[in-house]
């Protein structure tokens, strides 16, 4: 680990001004990705700006039928929140299978979404549920937020405050874990709303989380696993590595999607 300064502001406007004024600042929002990266000397921030001291940033509340989850809410809190479980049980279930207990008790939804790891779970939920990413500057629809591997629409001085999830009629998440890392190798979040079905895939795409349009169309017509049987998925956009080729990932995406549909319809 390289040396760095550490700040723990107590208000969001203070965070924004620190981001604007410091050399190489980096937000610390749980640190489950950042700290291992620092330990391996793969990052050298000048100052870590810890969001843990800001009041209310971890609040979870029912809102407009859906839920608003503060950026600093840990995965464990989302998984066990009565509000989330009542409104969107699939989201609580997703949070309950992120990483391991240590990760779930330190890692946060804002940290995960801002990092946009291509194998993270939350981006799939955001995209499939049509979530709104609320920042210190604006409101960004999920469809415009995720911009490729570890890339998002966030500006330099912009901080995620909360994520608002509308309530779907039906939803479920199923993932196949990478056998070694246990990150998602293919994670599929399926959500049906009055406007149709959205299917978001994480872990498999070469450019990170994506919506599977053909599956959405098929499921909007017929919300059954069987409807996915002959839906095409272009394997050339999928990752290929030591753990499996693109064709295997395509298969996993399809199987996880079917299982998610079955679970959602149950």
């Amino acid at each position: 680990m390289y040396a760095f300064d550490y700040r723990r502001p107590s208000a969001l406007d203070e965070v924004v001004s620190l981001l604007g004024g410091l050399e190489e600042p980096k937000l610390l929002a749980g640190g489950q990705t950042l700290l291992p990266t620092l330990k391996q000397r793969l990052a050298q921030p000048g100052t870590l700006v810890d969001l843990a001291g800001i009041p209310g940033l971890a609040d979870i509340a029912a809102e407009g039928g859906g839920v608003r989850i503060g950026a600093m809410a840990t995965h464990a809190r989302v998984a066990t929140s009565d509000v989330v479980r009542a409104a969107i049980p699939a989201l609580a279930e997703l949070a309950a299978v992120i990483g391991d207990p240590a990760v779930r008790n330190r890692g946060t939804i804002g940290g995960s979404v801002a990092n946009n790891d291509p194998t993270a779970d939350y981006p799939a939920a955001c995209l499939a549920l049509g979530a709104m990413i609320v920042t210190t500057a604006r409101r960004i629809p999920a469809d415009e937020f995720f911009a490729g591997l570890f890339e998002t629409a966030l500006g330099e001085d912009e901080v995620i405050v909360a994520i608002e999830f509308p309530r779907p009629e039906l939803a479920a998440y199923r993932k196949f874990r990478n056998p070694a890392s246990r990150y998602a190798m293919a994670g599929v979040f399926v959500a049906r709303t009055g406007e149709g079905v959205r299917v978001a895939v994480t872990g498999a795409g070469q450019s990170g989380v994506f919506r599977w349009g053909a599956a959405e169309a098929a499921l909007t017509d017929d919300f059954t696993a069987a409807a996915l049987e002959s839906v095409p998925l272009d394997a050339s956009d999928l990752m290929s590595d030591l753990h499996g080729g693109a064709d295997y990932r395509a298969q996993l995406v399809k199987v996880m999607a079917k299982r998610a549909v079955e679970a959602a319809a149950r």
Partner: protein
Amino acid sequence: MNASTVTPIGAPVRRKEDKRFITGKGRYTDDLSRPGQAHAYFLRSPYAHARIRTIDTAAAAEMPGVVGVLTGRDLAQDGLGGLICGWMINSKDGSPMRAGAHPALAVDTVRYVGDHVAVVIAETLNLAKDAAAALAVEYEVLPAVPDLAVAQAQGAAQIHEAAPNNTVFEWELGDRAAVEAAFAQAAHVTEIDIVNNRLAPNPMEPRAAIGEYDAGDEAYTLWTTSQNPHVARLVLSAFVGLAPENKLRVIAPDVGGGFGSKIFIYAEETVCAWAAKKVGRPVKWTCERGEAFLCDAHGRDHVTKGRLALDAQGKILGFQVKTIANMGAYLSTFASCVPTYLYATLLSGQYAIPAIYCEVDAVYTNTAPVDAYRGAGRPEATFLVERIVDKAARELGIDPAEMRRRNFITAFPHQTPVIMCYDAGDYAASLDKALEMADYAGFPARRAEAERRGKLRGIGLSNYIEACGIAPSAAVGSLGAGVGLWESAEVRVNPTGNVEVLTGSHSHGQGHETTFAQLVSARLGIPIDQVTVIHGDTDKVQFGMGTYGSRSGAVGMSAIVKALDKVEAKAKKIAAHILEASEGDIEFKDGRFSVAGTDRGLAFAEVALNAYVAHKFPTSEIEPGLKEGAFYDPTNFTFPAGCHVCELEVDPETGTTEIVNWIAVDDFGTVINPMIVEGQVHGGIAQGVGQALMERVAYDGEGQLVTGSYMDYQMPRAEDFPAFKVGMTETRCPSNPLGMKGCGEAGAIAAPPAVINALADALGTQDISMPATPAKVWAIAQARVTRQAAE
């Protein structure tokens, strides 16, 4: 004392050391700090093969907090020798193995990614890392040969001048002519190609070392994560030339697992000790997990072709094997014996095979050194034997269990064609018990039920044998070993009757502090908490050979038994004087010396006190005190054997393999503590299943390590397993006093073929390589669906 306070042999008593470990009171090397210690960081080669043109240390030496920057030239200038391989193997033509030099720090060439280029010693690890980034090394990158299969090919880059064609030796064992004759009359020949995948040992505690030099005593101390501290001292003294043995103390405190990887004498530990004098400060190094993947000696890594000659009834007539074994870039401490005498000598398995011939080529590649890892050669042999026998059974239409039964060795002792003389065993008994516990007969119904759920269910057997209790010293000496493989013990009875046992064995997870104390408790009739086991410090313990190869019970405890025999004999003499009886009339039972046929007697503690007070016996005849030592040299290997059954289900949609049932029936001879033994079996199975389904060290074409962390190297986890069903059968080992065989490696040896045989059964093909990852299994399952559709 009465017998109720004694812990008898066979009692599943809880481990004495666990309170210390689970309350964080263990003292591992990294827990220790020495006054004034500095921290070492090793600069490692980023290339698999390169010439070092220059190393400029000037800028690094000027960095804040730097205490010293040392390179291979400094080592050479101090006259230190390289690391050694302690087992000489001769090629078929009689020529000795061709070993290249193995300097602890590279001098002019690096030969694998992670090879040691320089060491930076600084006030903190962070400062040492900062300074290492300022080291200027100019490399001339050379073509690399990371791939075992092409290392011997014409035109391949040459890794060591001493080893033309990258070939260390071309060795053989057995009777080629007899095997050729067997094939000439075979009704059926089964052939198999096997890649035994390369594994990273992954003990929970990474390696660590602290070197210290006392300028007053002119003596070194090295705290290190070693399975055999005396052997480390011997090698560092006699071969590396660090210091005379009497000026070097090696201490292996609590050690958190080894699996073989901590047998070896590595560069980092050597450098820490040497550098301590060089920089005038204690020097500490703790391996990071990423460094462990790069530099801890790996295991396995064979490519093998096997051919089995059979008659029409499935009787095995002959077995021919050709193996290429990867040694990595340098020969590690015991690398050469693993694919030879620890491998080919077990190719008879549990079967009466009249003729066996095995050839092994050992080759250098630009990869980390390969050496012993849990099982060491025997898993490779067992995998080959149990896979080819299973394949033969299916080709001949014989049930795999019946196939094995037809070929079992049933009379003992049994001389195999590959050196080993099996002393005792009952292979049918293990098989019968395992099949019953597994409800083998009920499998077809379970398979049909699984099929209705869309799952492919398979069952697989593994009838393993291993050679443990290594080993008779003269025998291994005749095969090229540079050391004897006896063990030592000293039993020190204190005046108040409690006991210290100093053992040359080393516990790094095996529970010796309990098992060894249990033996002493049962023998002397004293409570187990009055027995303390001391190990791992060359200043405290007499020379010992350490722990590996499942030898601590059969060899280490036999030495304790010998010492206890002497203690009892002397105590009887003393008791006879006090009780005014003849020595021959003294009986020792339940912790009491008594005069036969009378009620006169003395407790063990009373005799101990008298031995030290020395008032009541003539010290001209009997020396005061009660302390005896012994060295035990085994007369044969021991031969644990058994039968494991794996039942699994494949999800053809995802390729996921779920192990749904596991039966282990093992014959370990006498069992001292069944709870500890069962734990050993569990851990071994987990590692064996890891090899079969999950683990593989992979290098890319340039020799870069692809699986350098747990992000890519899959370890087995508790959730991957059902509750194991462990059973035992027992035939005593006739060659040692307790009748013990050894249990530490059995699971890792037995498990891989049980898994792959079960997968072959589930998937209907023999073409399954390890690790059978979900992606691989899915592809096979897909091909099966396509095949069935075509039919």
